């Protein structure tokens, strides 16, 4: 991390030992227990990601992006090493980690990754079995959700004719910040037809795209485990902030 960056919008100001950002974030959560998380983001840890996590945080606060946090879902990996707790505390933003893996049905978000799950299959492999990913996630208390299912080649809809309807899918991403054309509509139609629930995520790869889509939860949550529980509770709503 480089030094001597300019403070953003007064976030170096401190109140009673806490940063303004932290204070505002906490007050915001007390006033409104609903939490909005961007469930699909990429940082420079992903091969095509160009955003530094610190800059995501700065952007969210400087632009008042209407989310409380985000999940880093790096491509074909899980980032055990990075610790974003200091950034999360400084900016009052929830920062969680997940993964985006690749299956015969396209790309799939995985929430609640732990070492047990990580050892079940090779995250770097292209063409994993979706049903196996779902089964292993259930075994280890995690959850898998196909993302941008309406996208050609890398979305689930494109593979239904060849592979049939997979077992075990409950949730798919129906609002994706990077969707083009009717991709979100195709995703929503599939979700409706097959009885899936929908989540939202920006799929941001650059700083200024974070929060374009997100998921609203009726309760507070602050850990990957709580995120999985909230998703399994099936009470959430995909939202779009795209202009």
């Amino acid at each position, binding site marked *: 991390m480089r030094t001597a960056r*300019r403070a953003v919008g007064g976030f170096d100001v401190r109140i009673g030992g806490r940063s303004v950002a932290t204070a505002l974030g906490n007050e915001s959560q007390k006033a409104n227990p609903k939490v909005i998380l961007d469930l699909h983001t990429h940082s420079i840890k992903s091969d095509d990601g*160009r955003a530094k996590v610190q800059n995501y945080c700065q952007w969210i606060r400087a632009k008042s992006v209407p989310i409380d946090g985000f999940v880093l879902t790096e491509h074909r990996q899980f980032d055990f090493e990075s610790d974003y707790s200091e950034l999360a505390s400084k900016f009052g933003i929830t920062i969680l980690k997940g993964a985006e893996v690749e299956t015969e049905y396209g790309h799939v978000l995985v929430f609640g990754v732990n070492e047990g799950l990580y050892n079940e299959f090779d995250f770097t492999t292209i063409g994993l079995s979706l049903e196996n990913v779902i089964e292993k996630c259930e075994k280890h208390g995690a959850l898998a959700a196909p993302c941008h299912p309406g996208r050609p080649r890398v979305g689930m809809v494109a593979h239904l004719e060849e592979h049939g309807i997979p077992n075990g899918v409950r949730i798919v991403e129906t609002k994706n910040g990077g969707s083009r054309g009717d991709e979100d509509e195709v995703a929503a139609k599939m979700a409706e037809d097959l009885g899936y629930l929908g989540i939202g995520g920006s799929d941001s*790869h650059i700083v200024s795209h974070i929060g374009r889509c997100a998921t609203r939860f009726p309760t507070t949550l602050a850990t990957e485990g709580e995120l999985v529980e909230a998703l399994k509770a099936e009470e959430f709503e995909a939202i779009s902030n795209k202009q």
Partner: protein
Amino acid sequence: MPDTHSTETVSNIGEVEFGSELPSFAPDTSTDNTKRFGKYVGWDSPRFTDHEGARKEGLPGAIVPGVLSQGFLGAMIHRWAPDAEIIAIDTVFRAPVLADVPHTITGTVTDIDEDEGTVEIDITITNEAGENRVFGTATAKLPT
């Protein structure tokens, strides 16, 4: 196609604010321009200059060459900061930029390093539907 742009500029890094937007502009994506570009660089492929020829190659129509798109992005930065030295333009091409179709080029400052005198800029090329066809980041060094 009109090449519209603002005259708003910065002259040194002290004038740059996090989150500030560079003046956006509509690049000249016409096949006349791609033909001119192809002629200058010696790369006169039908995929860049002729819609029918491009369709025969499986494309939806003639496309703007990637390096020309990067040139547009660099031009946006220099219009905003005429004395900037562009260190890098790092682009991800998600979908083709179709020729003879209006697009918009935008840039937003997402990092400032005053020690190094550099700024990082999110850059995008979007079509009229607001779809990101190209995105990435640029790093530019400005006078201190």
